[in-house]
């Protein structure tokens, strides 16, 4: 507890193989503004799902979350919708990279993803490597050092800017 990297709140759950076209349809990629994108996040699933998304803090999902396109806005739109972390049984590799690079916590934990229902609370601490929900604690392997550094700065671009400002190599 007390870690600055502990985030969480109310959960919205999704099933397996949630793809990028469902998360953010291609027609909206003309924008990179998180708030604008958030209005269209999960639009194919209808307004009820979209309303629940905006009232949630954490996404819990099954296998292969974010499969499909390399569109970074699949992560950005979730940030815009107020999502702080995605806990899934597994991720597609591009979504995982995009999440880290945009500062969205992405944690692979099949057990934690399986344990929650819509509306539960879930808290994630990526320093400690724990997911807490329903009074249970699920450990996960902490991020490798390079990913921790990116996340600590809020994403890849802020991380590079911080490193340049500190006189790091360009």
């Amino acid at each position, binding site marked *: 507890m007390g870690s600055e990297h502990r985030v969480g709140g109310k959960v919205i759950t999704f099933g397996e*193989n949630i793809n*990028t076209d469902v998360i953010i349809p291609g027609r909206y990629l003309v924008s990179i503004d998180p708030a604008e994108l958030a209005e269209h996040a999960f639009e194919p699933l209808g307004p009820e799902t979209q309303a629940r998304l905006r009232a949630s803090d954490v996404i819990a999902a099954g296998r*292969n979350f974010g499969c499909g396109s390399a569109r970074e806005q699949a992560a950005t739109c979730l940030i815009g919708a107020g999502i702080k972390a995605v806990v899934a049984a597994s991720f*597609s590799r591009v979504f995982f990279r995009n999440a880290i690079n945009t500062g969205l916590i992405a944690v692979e934990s099949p057990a934690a993803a399986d344990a929650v229902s819509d509306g539960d609370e879930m808290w994630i601490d990526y320093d400690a490597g724990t997911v807490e929900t329903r009074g249970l604690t699920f450990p996960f392997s902490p991020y490798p050092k*390079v990913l921790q550094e990116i996340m600590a700065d809020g994403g890849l671009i802020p991380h590079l800017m911080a490193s340049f400002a500190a006189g790091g*190599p360009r």
Partner: protein
Amino acid sequence: MTGQTFAQKAIQRASGTAGIVPGQIVDAYPDLYMSHTASWRCIRTLEKMGVDRLYDVDRVAMVMDHISPAMDAKTAAHHALCREFAQRMGVKHFFDVNSGIAHIVLMEHGLVRPGQFIIGTDSHSTIYGALGAFGTGVGFSEITAAWVTGKLWVKVPESVQVVIDGELAPGVYAKDVMLKLIGDLGADGLTYDSVEFSGSYVEGISVSERMTFCNLAMEMGAKNAYVAPDDTTLAYLDEAGVPREELEVLLPDPDAAYRATVRLDGPTLAPQIAVPHTVDNVVDVGDVAGTKLDQVFIGSCANAKYDDLVIAAEVLAGHKVAPGVRLIVTPASAKIMARAAANGVLTTLIEAGAMITNPGCGACAGNGGAMTDGETTLSTANRNFQGRMGSYHSKIFLSSPATAAASAIRGVITDPREVVAEVVA
């Protein structure tokens, strides 16, 4: 010591780190950073960073393919930004809206070479494995970061061998093989894996068919895909103007360690089709034959190359597209379109009732060829996700160009072997 896979060798070359093993994270320096229509996002990000010096502008390749030509003032402004940037920064490898789909264009122009490590703002960047390169998709922030720093972090993947032996039956194509594999292994069956295709079938196929293979490997979650370069590859590279003395072919060692080996028997395969709304929802074409179609799309980086258009034209020659069905043909590149025009392939398609669009991603990226509620498209592309081609209440099936062409004639999903048999009889 165990030998190395292709992925280990390619990442070793790109990172300068010897003895790397799966799971290890290293910094790799890509040979090429491809950005497509997303390039404007990279430029805006660069502006935000306040950086105006690139690591190596000659490794930047920009292709305006996803929205071509511009569809409105906003996308026109994005294109203008990219043109101005390319001019100002001296980006040599800038391809405008008349060029075609990034992957195909870069390969045709000799910018993809065996052994290279290439990143692109497109998940189907796995396609570069068709020429023995390591290609993988990333987001636009990572391309921007590579523009500035020249590098990105890479986790060394495990590798899986996919061995396909034997010849395919008439009417069965590379697309059918890949759909079968995707159906069998699932949309995450090869997540994070490097896939090496081999076997007598793979040795015998063209670079275009290998592109179909490596492109679609992504639909199983693969990080990259690979076919070992051979004489077929060298002939393609000769045509693309790549000097042989510049080639650095990387081959996996015979004793390399694989996570798994998957085998598929070519001769027993029937035409395959992916049904809505996931690519791994695959059945024999015969199982859904008779399904009514509103539109057929022959396009995308998976299946709109020259030989794909020829196959479609052969099936459609002397036939007409069924009344009420729209057949859209979008050649993958300007070069392919010119060749198809010169050889009468486009005329055959037009006479059958097809509409030919300019080269690019077209309907696969949702630009042109959108559907309204309740409509169904049979597409040769690589994704059938809900809403990808217009209405969220429309359906997309995925097949080979032969199945698509045969189905356009009948107006319903049709096993191409039926139409070809009709022609022969």
